[in-house]
């Protein structure tokens, strides 16, 4: 248990690349918002500030298994502890990102919008319909979704370079390219994304994200077992 939190702590500390990418994108966006909206008073739609932060769980899901794995093992961490020590890091990242997005969405976006005559900021809380049942529910819906994103990125990164990794990559491409043009299959795809993102019942969306996330994360145990240090 103690090593698990220790590893999670190191994982959070050593995700500098992810922080940097997200930080740069975020501040570029802040700069451009200030220039276009506040100074030049240009009208038009744009992505809300918080959206860039949402990249963080995705990037951490890629960088932690890709960059931290062997270094943690060289410090004396065991494979099973690594498996246990990633999820808490993703959960913490998802928690803080959701919190930050919520703050930006509720406090900063309205300020930016006040410079425009018509509301034209696309925030994922609105786009996904998370705002429907209030702020608290919106928080949990976003949190669950981000956790799922981390888990999927984590496992997909781990399987790269193994035969089942290529298979997983091929399957994802096939599903997206083949399913989209064929109506019944497209319907299945739509149903899937509807369930994990847009579902009208928050509980269904949250639970399906958490269950799917847990399943995908656990599938990562097989590549962790086989991964070279």
């Amino acid at each position: 248990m103690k090593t698990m939190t220790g590893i999670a702590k190191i994982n959070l500390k050593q995700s500098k690349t992810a922080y940097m990418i997200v930080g740069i994108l975020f501040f570029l966006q802040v700069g451009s918002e200030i220039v276009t909206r506040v100074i030049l008073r240009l009208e038009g739609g744009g992505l809300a500030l918080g959206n860039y932060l949402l990249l963080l769980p995705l990037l951490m899901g890629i960088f932690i298994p890709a960059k931290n794995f062997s270094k943690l093992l060289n410090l004396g961490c065991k494979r099973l502890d690594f498996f246990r020590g990633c999820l808490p890091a993703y959960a913490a990242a998802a928690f803080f990102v959701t919190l930050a997005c919520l703050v930006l969405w509720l406090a900063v976006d309205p300020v930016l919008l006040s410079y425009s005559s018509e509301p034209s900021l696309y925030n994922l809380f609105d786009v996904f319909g998370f705002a429907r049942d209030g702020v608290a529910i919106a928080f949990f819906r976003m949190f669950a979704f981000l956790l799922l994103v981390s888990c999927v990125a984590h496992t997909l990164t781990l399987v790269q370079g193994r035969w089942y990794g290529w298979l997983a990559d091929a399957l994802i491409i096939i599903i997206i390219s083949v399913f989209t043009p064929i109506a019944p299959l497209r319907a299945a795809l739509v149903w899937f994304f509807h369930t994990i993102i847009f579902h009208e019942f928050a509980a269904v969306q949250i639970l399906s994200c958490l269950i799917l996330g847990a399943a995908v994360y656990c599938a990562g145990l097989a590549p962790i077992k086989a991964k070279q240090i």
Partner: protein
Amino acid sequence: MIEFSNVTKNYGKNTAMDNFSIKIDQPGMYCLLGRNGAGKTTLMKLLAGNVAASEGTITVNGEAAGPLAMPESVHFVETGATQFNMRLADLFKAAAEVNLSFDVPFAMGLARRFQLDASKRYKHLSFGMKAMVNTVIAMASGRDILLLDEPVLGFDPVMRKVFYELLSESCAGSTKTVIVSTHIIDEIEKTAERLIIIDRGKKVLFCDMAEIDEKAYCVTGISESVQAATAGLNIISETKAGGFMTRHIYDQRIEASEKYSVSSLGLTDFFVSLVGREQNSGEAM
């Protein structure tokens, strides 16, 4: 206590470990010798639970070892191991986060003795210094079985000497089992207590280092008399030139005579004779 029972490890079509068995039940420093590709690294990785055996079982203190059951008492240091790019002092603290038995003050003390600057970041260290850091992390890990894969690669002779002195010093009186693989025999010959020689994934020799001094020797002289004197002994290699012959023996010592001389065989020569058979066979046998 470490035990390999009939362990085979295949990488695709290559066999890195071939029905390998060994039982290590005494603490101390072990020297693991073998040519490139003999299976030294594989042996260590199997023991650390970094790879799974294709066949056979590996147990550490009675518990089976494998990737999802990496033995708690083993710390493995690979060649050129990478570490987080932190200041050494922070790196040791990080090690203590992931391994509860890690001893930070001890690591700091060792770093001082190795003349490592704890305020330097890992990436700013030289190759040799990095290897030192990895060894310090192993020695401070609080674990009983340390596996060091080519720890002195890239060291100058002075660093090698300091390294082995510190290693044997920190092993003396402890219950640690330290297995060191290397190609540079000079210092380890004088430090290690036991010797494991492997070749093509098989165990060739497992003995006390003192046995090499006692049993490995070289007989040179007139062919017939050398042949007669060494008949029935364990001949590991043979070289002929004119009517003379040199035989390398690993067996009971014989006395020198007028017709042949007997001299000791250093570990390097012994090792080359033992595992270099293929190359010699053309001329010698």
